[in-house]
């Protein structure tokens, strides 16, 4: 019996290995993004994000002269902790450092039998120690601030503001959060686009889904089959005429234009999902309601809407993520006049204007809301996906 259990356990090891490996591969790129977004620009440019997890490796003259006694991380001698900024600050240059190295410690030469470093090497050691001081404050939210206000300089927004050398489009006060190049403004724009573009299709789809599921009319089946076909029409097929029309009536660059477009385009899937869900409600429910003299409208308001809440939730999450994550529609209809988050990020990627640290912070900001929605309402999301299985 016991042997059986051990065998069973052994048989399962490959399964665990494959699953855990896949999980690691799937999560690591996102972890890299998150870690990078928290690191200072200098560190991002020079070392990979994974180095923050490894103990600091000594390099250059420091490794040659000091690491043996002080340790690779400078912490080996508690009385002379080289990772402590206060200790390091006493020896900012090669002169002070060499003077210290020439002194005796407890009657013994500081360097023992080893030769003293040259002036050049001492300078490098001093610089190395100071750099270590910087990386002791490894993580900060500076990149997020930079991303939110749309700072694109060499330094950080806060440092530039403190020095008064900020770019002309920034004022170093709360108004910067609305800077048109920043992710703060883009976040608000994204919300303004997404919320109506989620609610409107749900409302229309609830009406239409009710009609398709519970009302009788001529051509019901044919119309619905047509709708199923429309679900897979590519966005690209409709962009040009609509953007030409919008240009004529002045809807280009307006929220209204994007709301309507998303509503129209999300409709077939939304109705499909609604109708399939409402179709599973028990028939007797409607029969008794109508026998009691309820009108269509009463039945819709008091039966359909409350009972359809799970479907509305699924649909809402789906449409929300779709609109929030969309690039093509906002690129074409909003562009740079009212930039949303995806537009702003794609612009940062293609124009190569800003460093990885701001880009990763911006990308993470844009992922924040979808992630929260996704992890808190995963159940509804999965259900909506299973019911539709065709939206893309």
């Amino acid at each position, binding site marked *: 019996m016991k042997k059986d259990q051990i065998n069973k356990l052994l048989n399962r090891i490959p399964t665990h290995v494959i699953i855990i490996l896949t999980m690691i591969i799937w999560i690591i790129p996102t972890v890299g993004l998150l870690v990078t977004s928290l690191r200072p620009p200098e560190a991002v440019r020079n070392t990979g994000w994974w180095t923050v997890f490894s103990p600091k490796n000594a390099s250059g003259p420091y490794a040659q002269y000091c690491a043996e006694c002080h340790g690779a991380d400078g912490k080996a001698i508690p009385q002379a902790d080289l990772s402590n900024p206060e200790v390091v600050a006493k020896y900012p240059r090669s002169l002070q450092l060499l003077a210290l190295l020439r002194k005796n410690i407890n009657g013994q030469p500081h360097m023992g039998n080893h030769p003293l470093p040259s002036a050049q090497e001492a300078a490098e050691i001093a610089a190395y120690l100071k750099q270590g001081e910087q990386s002791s404050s490894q993580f900060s939210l500076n990149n997020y601030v930079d991303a939110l206000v749309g700072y694109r300089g060499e330094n950080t927004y806060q440092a530039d503001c403190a020095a008064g050398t900020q770019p002309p489009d920034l004022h170093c006060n709360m108004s910067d959060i609305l800077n048109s190049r920043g992710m703060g403004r883009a976040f608000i724009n994204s919300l303004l686009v997404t919320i109506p573009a989620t609610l409107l299709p749900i409302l229309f*789809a609830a009406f239409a889904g009710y009609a398709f599921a519970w009302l009788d009319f*001529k051509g019901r089946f044919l119309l619905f089959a047509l709708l199923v076909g429309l679900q897979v029409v590519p966005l690209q097929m409709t962009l040009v005429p609509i953007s030409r029309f919008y240009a004529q009536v002045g809807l280009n660059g307006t929220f209204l234009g994007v709301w309507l477009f998303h509503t129209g385009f999300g409709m*077939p899937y939304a109705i499909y999902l609604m109708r399939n869900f409402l179709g*599973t409600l028990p028939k007797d429910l409607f029969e008794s309601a109508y026998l009691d003299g309820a009108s*269509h409208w009463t039945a819709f308001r008091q039966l359909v809407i409350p009972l359809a*809440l799970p479907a509305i939730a699924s649909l809402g999450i789906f449409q929300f993520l779709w609109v929030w*994550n969309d690039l093509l529609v906002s690129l074409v209809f909003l562009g740079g006049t009212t930039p949303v988050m995806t537009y702003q*990020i794609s612009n940062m990627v293609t124009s190569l204007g800003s460093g990885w640290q701001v880009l990763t912070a911006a990308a993470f900001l844009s992922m924040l809301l979808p992630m929260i929605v*996704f992890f808190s309402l995963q159940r509804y999301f999965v259900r909506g996906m299973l019911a539709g299985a065709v939206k893309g």
Partner: protein
Amino acid sequence: MATPQDISKPATTPEVAIRRRPLRASSAPPVPEIMKQGGLAPWLYLLPALLVMSFFIVYPMINTIGLSFLNKNGTASAATTCRAEQPCWGVFENYRYALTAEFNTSSPGAFWNSFWSSSYGNTIKWIFVMVVGTVSVGLGFAVLADRVKYEALAKAILFMPMAISFVGAGVIWKFVYDYGTGQKQIGLLNSIITSLGGHPVAWLSTTPINTYMIILVGIWIWSGFCMTILAAALKSVPDEILEAARVDGATEWTVFWRIMVPIILPTITVVVTTMVINVLKLFDLVYVMTGGNFQTDVIANRMYTEMYKNFNVGRGTAIAVVLVLAIIPFIYFNVRRFMEQEATR
């Protein structure tokens, strides 16, 4: 098979008791007798939806087809853009451009090479690699994750990229693929390669691997989608059948290929067609990661380039029509599947 109808039934709502009653079998969705009155009411409920759909899907589709026969600005026939001494398809000139401009027809060898670096060749690569990749990762993971205690966590992690935008995914992976100079590699992939003693590779600008590197990102995003749908189908495979096979001495491998796969085959077909449609429409990833440069272009991105970078309405819409022609078989498939489902309701 997991039809949308039985899955969309919510598991936990106050009305569970009512809803779990078996539905009566009938050829069409049940409509109470009392409702068989037709009239205006249904159309009032349909009106908003029909209006926006006709205006934003049906009318633009027809308009797009019309525009594809016109010139750059949609002001004259496409035939007027023909140049002397050049091949010309008359009013189908934009289609000549859409279908042949990327190809070098000087010799069969040159044609072959230019085909596989064109947006068409790349889209075919995308379809094959992406579909095989996502379905095998999704199916494999669905089968294996079913046997471990941390199933929910494992599935959530695989599924997570679905919540991320293509743009966000593009940034994440561009960083993984980053190509630095010499030993200074801040991209994870090149860093692994250099630490193993290899030479770093410019993943996104080296043809032909760059297309496959972007496809990998697509697989990263969509595997969770395939996994979720296939897992739901797998759960509906009766345990008794699997147990009976195991008792008869079938290995897990045989159980998988001879029992599970045949039973969920209809769902696999649905997933495959869905993925093909998704790939055909795919635009954002290529746009963000390479902009279609370095021979990574796909049909959907080429349409955007013609339309919004070259401002050529005729050519852009012609490419869009080609794209929709490629999708028509799947529209047919979708509608047929829907008809079959309705018949068994």
